[in-house]
């Protein structure tokens, strides 16, 4: 076939498709309320557990709850997803942003277009989001972890702080809390620089090993993001330092259980991500019905919540080798 003919054929075909597509019968779609969660990255176990909560909420409330995430923890990809959701006229978007500031323009754009935006797991405080749902105050949990670790190592020695993405608000607040907690112990020195492993399992592992080899006198790790505590636990196990180095962090019990049992990791402070997501979906749904979250209310299956200055907090949980088997996440 001659080249010009080829070009015309292809153009005509694509053109026909576009026209056909545009004229396709506008089916009367029953408009189901749609809440779309946008997490930091797809493929983390933490994310999969959150998804369970979203699915449960969808079933119970009879609405559509989507759970989207980019394949890499990049805010640019989250922005692309949110723009699509705006075009799709979702009723509400709930985000855990990879970058608290870069996400602001698109959040505001969504709000301006009539899409209600909320944050969960990690906040974008400088945006127009309606409220933020978390389990335990982001700073306080850092303080609690620092205290637990400090007691574990006898109040002195070198401690390495480990976090995920540098621009994630929740992680930075955890780190702030850790610094605050450790500040009370003059004999504890913090190794600089802190490790930032971008929520990547492979990086978490290799950076943990590198840290232990670079500073053989580290006695404790304080981990802010979910891949870190198990990764450090593994490094400690492989380098034969169980008992000599202690680890406290935020991580999933299912990813850390063998290290909790062997003693490589001492304890975790977390919350049930499924419950957190489930509750968030309910709270957002209620908001769309005109009901605000109630400070001090007791929510079934969750516990007592607090609501102050746009932040909703649900209770968290401490996990050690004694109770790790209780948890299914």
């Amino acid at each position, binding site marked *: 076939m001659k*080249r010009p003919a080829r070009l015309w054929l*292809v153009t005509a075909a694509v053109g*026909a498709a576009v026209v056909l597509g545009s004229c396709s019968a506008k089916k009367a779609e029953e408009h189901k309320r749609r809440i779309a969660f946008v997490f930091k990255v797809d493929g983390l176990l933490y*994310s999969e557990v959150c998804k369970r909560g979203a699915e449960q909420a969808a079933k119970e409330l009879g609405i559509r709850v989507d759970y989207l995430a980019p394949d890499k923890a*990049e805010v*640019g990809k989250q922005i692309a997803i949110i723009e699509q959701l705006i075009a799709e006229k979702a009723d509400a978007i709930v985000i855990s942003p990879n*970058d608290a500031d870069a996400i602001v323009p698109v959040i505001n754009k969504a709000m301006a277009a009539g899409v209600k935006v909320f944050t969960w797991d990690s906040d974008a405080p400088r945006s127009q989001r309606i409220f933020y749902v978390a389990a335990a105050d982001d700073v306080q949990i850092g303080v609690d972890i620092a205290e637990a670790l400090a007691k574990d190592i006898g109040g002195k020695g070198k401690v390495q702080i480990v976090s995920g993405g540098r621009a994630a608000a929740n992680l930075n607040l955890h780190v702030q809390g850790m610094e605050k907690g450790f500040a009370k112990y003059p004999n504890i020195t913090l190794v600089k620089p802190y490790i930032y492993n971008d929520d990547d399992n492979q990086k978490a592992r290799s950076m943990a090993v590198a840290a232990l080899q670079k500073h053989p006198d580290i006695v404790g790790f304080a981990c802010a993001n979910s891949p870190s505590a198990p990764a450090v636990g593994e490094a400690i196990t492989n380098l034969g330092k169980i008992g000599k180095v202690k680890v406290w962090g935020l991580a999933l019990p299912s990813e850390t259980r063998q290290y909790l049992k062997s003693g490589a990791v001492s304890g975790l402070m977390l919350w049930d991500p499924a419950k957190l997501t489930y509750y968030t979906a309910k709270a957002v749904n209620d908001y769309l019905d005109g009901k605000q979250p109630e400070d001090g209310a007791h929510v079934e299956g969750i516990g007592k919540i607090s609501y102050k200055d746009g932040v909703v907090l649900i209770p968290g949980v401490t996990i050690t080798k004694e109770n790790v088997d209780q948890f299914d996440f």
Partner: protein
Amino acid sequence: MRLRLPAETGVAAVVMLAYLWLAVSFPTFRESAGLAVLLNNAAEIGVIAAGMTLVIATGGIDVSVGSVAGVSAIAFAKLLTSAGWGLPEALLGCLTVGLLCGFINGTLIARFQLPPIVATLAMFAAARAGAYVLSGGESISDLPAPLISFGYGSFLGIPYPVWPAAAALVVCGVLLRRTAFGRELLALGGNREASYLSGRPVRRIEALVYTLNGLLAAVAAIIIVARGATAIPDAGRFSEMTAITAVVMGGTPVSGGKATVLGTALGVLAIGLITNGVRAYGKGDIWVLLMLGLALLLSVEVDRWRSGERRVAA
């Protein structure tokens, strides 16, 4: 008498089917807002895929474009923030970085005759590391407002980033079909030894095509930074694979000698439809990777059928 279908048939069919399916299932795909998002997402891959078509036409490959985009993005952002340069100068700086990386690739391949996959593999590793060295591992925000609005605004109803992407595709298409440069590229892909023995300035042309690819990677970097409102050292990761997928889906054979930029453009559209389609179904992006793998296999299979190569292997 057999009707020889054009190379773009397979991908055109995919685009049509995917679009029809999605347009029927989701209203967004029928509306301009949804189409704008689709094109916006496709823009960065479009730029890279345009250059990649030319590279593959020569029988080569360039797996470093993602990393080159990354290091260019960081250089761009660093110039804007730490060095305090103005936007036009920083843009030039960004393009220069990409050009330089592409030039190194071109030299290794044309001058030193390294296999393209080896040379671009080395650049893949080195450029990404370079991005981390330059940025200190940090992401860079605080970018000037005009840049951010480039990522969000539109001109004549078409989002800004689509314009450079369309331009890149058109330019590469014209280069391929209507210039001596393009003819040489195809000759090189058709028979490398003959081209090199013919006495024509093949070395220069081969080096040029990789240099151009580096430049286009830098253009993509600008789009990525504008859309993301930040420059991260990981910018552009995996985009080389997506671009190669688009080119192959479009009907350009990996062995070189033949190429179609129109096919590549359709391939980029197909990938955009898959990505946005998965998201419209409310699924995570891992499904996008799965679907891309299937789409790639499908399109190569269709191309086999189209070109009549249905004999079973000996």
